[in-house]
């Protein structure tokens, strides 16, 4: 059976050889040629496997030559097979070398990324350190400012306390009386020349103390109030109280107290501090009262009761 079919095949081959002019081929040779075209178009192959591709090309040339010489199918197929395997080998070698090149590239890239990461980390650490330093400096500055503020407040408190002590001492010397309107210093009749509006030297010395107080306490004002006894006409008394109050106010002015801090009122015989029945009592009523305002305060007006 087999022998006979082979014989007929052979016969057919012989006949075909006799009349066929078309180049002969085999499926393996066709495959090898197609693979060759594909490999030839693969840039990796020309870059990474030129030697292997040359060997594959030579093997294909041999197979093609065998086909052109119309050698046996078996021989052509055998040569084509070797060519096909060598083409595949060239492609695989190229793929492997390309992958190795990728590995080299990726390793380099990895080193760069690691370096960049370390640099970024160092930068970050530096920035954080700088921020911490700046924060510490700021905190220190704040602490210093607070300390200075506290010292200044302490100083101010000390100054205030000292001023209060000085004021206290002066007020005691002037025999000032604390009332709800402020401290009241009374310049009595004996500090004026009789029936005159001229101050005696001891009256001037009291006023000088008051001017000192005014200089040290710029937030206080004074109200100068003039009074008389009921002897004589009301208009004369009004005028006398006015003149005496003016004398005190202008004396304070010459001692350096700004006039806008000095107010003045004349009450005549109103608001006596004692009944006008004896000479001593009348002398008490002939007076000038100086009201020293409280710190930053207005002096309330005199009410009818006093």
């Amino acid at each position, binding site marked *: 059976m*087999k*022998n006979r*079919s*082979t014989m007929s095949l052979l016969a057919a081959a012989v006949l075909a050889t006799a009349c066929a002019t078309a180049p002969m081929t085999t499926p393996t040779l066709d495959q090898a040629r197609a693979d060759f075209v594909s490999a030839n178009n693969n840039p990796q192959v020309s870059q990474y496997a030129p030697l*292997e591709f040359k060997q594959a090309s030579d*093997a294909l040339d041999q197979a093609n030559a065998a086909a052109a010489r119309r050698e046996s199918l*078996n021989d052509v197929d*055998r040569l084509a*097979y*070797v060519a096909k*395997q*060598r083409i*595949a*080998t060239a492609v*695989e*070698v190229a*793929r*492997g*070398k390309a*992958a*190795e090149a*990728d*590995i080299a590239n*990726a*390793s380099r*890239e*990895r080193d760069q*990324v*690691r370096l*960049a*990461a370390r640099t*970024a*980390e160092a930068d*970050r650490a530096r*920035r954080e350190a700088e*921020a911490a330093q700046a924060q510490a400096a700021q905190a220190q500055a704040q602490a210093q400012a607070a300390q200075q503020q506290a010292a200044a407040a302490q100083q101010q408190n000390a100054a205030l306390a000292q001023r209060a002590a000085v004021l206290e001492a002066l007020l005691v010397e002037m025999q000032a009386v604390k009332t709800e309107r402020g401290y009241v210093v009374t310049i009595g009749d004996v500090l004026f020349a009789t029936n005159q509006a001229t101050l005696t030297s001891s009256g001037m010395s009291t006023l000088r103390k008051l001017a000192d107080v005014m200089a040290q306490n710029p937030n206080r004002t004074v109200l100068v109030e003039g009074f008389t006894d009921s002897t004589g006409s009301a208009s004369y008394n009004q005028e006398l109280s006015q003149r005496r109050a003016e004398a005190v106010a202008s004396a304070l002015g010459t001692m350096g107290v700004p006039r806008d801090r000095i107010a003045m009122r004349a009450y005549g015989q109103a608001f006596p501090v004692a009944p006008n029945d004896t000479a001593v009592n009348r002398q008490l009523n002939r007076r000038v009262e100086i009201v020293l305002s409280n710190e930053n305060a207005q002096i309330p007006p005199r009410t009818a009761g006093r």
Partner: protein
Amino acid sequence: MDQEHAMSRLLTPLVAAAVLALAGCASPQKAPATADVAVSRNAVENAVSAGAAELAPAEITAARDKMVRANAALAAKDYKLARELAIQAQADAKLAQSKANSAKATAAADALDADLRVLREEVERANAPSATTTTPAGATQ
């Protein structure tokens, strides 16, 4: 296969005749065939040590099969067949070896690429929070 067997059976007497005819100069044919078989055996061994048994099993099996047949042909003093089979086995073995090598290199490259991607993501994550914390600080200055 059957056809090949049939062919070889048919060809055998012819070959035998040729061999007989060339009996005088048969010994020079033996040497190159033996050399080719040895070279191919070497190629198969190289492919196996490159990992072809796992990475290119079809090719290495074909190469080994042809080696067995080449050795048989050598034993039968069919030097032409032995040479042809040895050459094919060598082509198979070289393909198996290059396939194994490229598979390993490709796997390594892929792993490295994956590593690189992970590393890049880590770096980006590490840099991201610092970027958001420095922005308000910069804005206040």
